[in-house]
């Protein structure tokens, strides 16, 4: 397989190009996604290639962007709607949660809603409380939505292509600090199915479960733990919903211990749900220790560099959590 090294942002851009070539019903809409090429450059070149009706620069109107995606999806299109920051999804929430997610069910299965809500999340760049959140748990809570959070360029491209081909609304969440990260992807086309976690590192002593940017923190923690003689398994969920429960349970029946890591707030976060699924399964009998969560603290993300980094999980906190239960 011929491989090439490209950035996370470029990988997403390739996915959009390929899918827009493949299917003329696919189009992007959002704030500055056309001529400007996207606030984070993900839609670069689409306007030039496909024109202003397939790379649509909208007014700053998140509710109308999300709602227009719903209306055009029920009339046969496959919109990729960009919500520039996940923090702004609050403005579009009715359309995502009450309309996109429920329309098929409310209509007794008559409608298809092939929409991707592409959005960007995460802290670490000094954007403060309204531009740094990780709100995946909100969307995970809603029946009728799928939630995807890639960690590498390879996953970003393969999962975005799958999201665009999915006939259901998908909330596709990209971490802002991953856009420039580079990784290898094949030259030829590939897709990554939803609901298949990726075991990034095999291990037998403890299972570390995470997704998105935090995977990289977990991997470097695991590397350091290896030096201490602790052999950690690291699982990248890739999709929050559908959740690959099987891979999680299999791993814990092997290791008997688990740490869950995410940048989002601990209270009501995905970690709590994963723990519930574990203790509700056959893995419960294999548990040898309490399950630990390493999460963002339950505070608005502060602006100050030192305070911001204090609010977020670190490699050290992951190692500490592992050591508490090993």
């Amino acid at each position, binding site marked *: 397989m011929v491989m090439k090294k490209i950035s996370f942002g470029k990988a997403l851009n390739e996915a959009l190009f390929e899918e827009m070539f493949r299917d003329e019903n696919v*189009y992007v*809409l959002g704030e500055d996604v056309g001529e400007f090429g996207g606030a984070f450059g993900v839609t670069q070149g689409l306007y030039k290639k496909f024109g202003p*009706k*397939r790379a*649509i620069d*909208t*007014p700053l*109107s*998140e*509710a*109308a962007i*999300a*709602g*227009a*995606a*719903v*209306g*055009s*999806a*029920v*009339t*046969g*299109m496959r*919109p990729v709607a960009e919500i520039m920051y996940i923090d702004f999804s609050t*403005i579009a929430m*009715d*359309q995502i949660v*009450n*309309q996109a997610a429920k*329309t*098929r*069910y*409310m*209509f*007794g*299965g*008559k*409608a*298809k809603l092939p929409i991707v809500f592409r959005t960007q999340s995460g802290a670490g760049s000094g954007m403060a409380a309204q531009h740094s959140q990780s709100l995946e748990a909100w969307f995970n809570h809603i*029946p*009728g939505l*799928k939630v995807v959070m890639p960690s590498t360029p390879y996953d970003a491209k393969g999962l975005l292509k799958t999201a665009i081909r*999915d*006939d*259901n609304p998908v909330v596709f969440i990209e971490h802002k600090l991953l856009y420039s990260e580079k990784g290898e992807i094949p030259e030829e086309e590939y897709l990554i199915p939803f609901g298949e976690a990726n075991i990034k590192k095999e291990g037998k002593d403890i299972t570390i479960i995470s997704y998105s940017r935090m995977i990289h923190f977990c991997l470097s923690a695991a590397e350091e733990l290896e030096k201490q003689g602790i052999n950690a398994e690291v699982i990248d969920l890739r999709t929050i919903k559908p959740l690959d429960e099987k891979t999680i349970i299999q791993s814990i029946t092997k290791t008997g211990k688990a740490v869950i890591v995410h940048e989002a707030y601990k209270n009501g976060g995905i970690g709590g749900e994963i723990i519930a699924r574990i203790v509700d399964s056959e893995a419960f009998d294999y548990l040898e220790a309490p399950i630990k969560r390493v999460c963002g603290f339950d505070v608005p993300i502060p602006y100050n560099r030192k305070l911001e980094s204090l609010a977020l999980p670190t490699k050290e906190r992951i190692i500490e959590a592992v050591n508490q239960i090993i």
Partner: protein
Amino acid sequence: MKLQKETLISLYQTMYKIREFEKAVVDLFSQDLIRGSAHVYLGEEAVASGACHALEKDDYIVSTHRGHGHCIAKGGKVDKMMAEIMGKSTGYCKGKGGSMHIADLECGILGANGIVGAGIPIATGAGMTSWIKKDSKVTLCFFGDGASNQGTFHESINMAAVFKLPVIFICENNQFALFTSTNKALSVKKVSERSTSYGIPGYSINGNDVIEVFNTVSAAVENARQGNGPSLIECKTYRWLGHFIGDPENYRTKEEVKNWKLKKDPIEIYKIKLFKENVVKEKELAFIEKEIDNEIENAINFAKTSPEPEDKELWTDVLC
């Protein structure tokens, strides 16, 4: 514009069908055969009838929580509607949507909506499809005076105006947003004044005059079809019943309601006009009414005798 007899009678048929359907809904609700909430359209029949007659079959409408009239006017089947409202498996949504979520995509009915103002961006999206595909379809977006105070109203009409989308925004000003008079909640006398903010044509018309509605919407539809973008049409009308069935209605006087029913009933006014202009004879109209009465009666029987959804339906249609 001189209208064909066929159109003139069809407008009456639609209004009458809506009236009788809604009377049946009120009756069934009082018998506990309809649960939850049913927002009826009594008194407002001319708006949906006039507006939807301006459309072709494959054009779209987006409806509201008070949507039965829109669905009937766009060609929805009263038996499947009634079955849906009674929560039966033969209903438009298999009994899973109810009164506030009736949709028939084959008829271009993109759905009623339980959230006030939420249909406005959805209609804008349907217009976006037509704009991208150049399919010459037009979308009528129905919403109430209350919805015109929602953020989605501003976001969507601005966006539709910017792209010149083929969407007609039809505000049904029935004088009340839930239990609050428009006088207390609107910053302008006429909702149509707001059109100037978006640089699009705006009209405030008598929503109880079915011909005025038909003519105004027809012109706006034609304009949109030619690529000239959206219009905002405020149809002034009056909600005969409360916000919901059982509303105590302590926010208005009985006299006010009586006055509208006696003097401004859109169906009575139109009926007199049809007789006066010799469009139709009393006997002919009575026959038309009888046919509709039978259709409604059959719909009620169909709904009553239809089965409940099976338990497994709980789990279907969440995802494709």
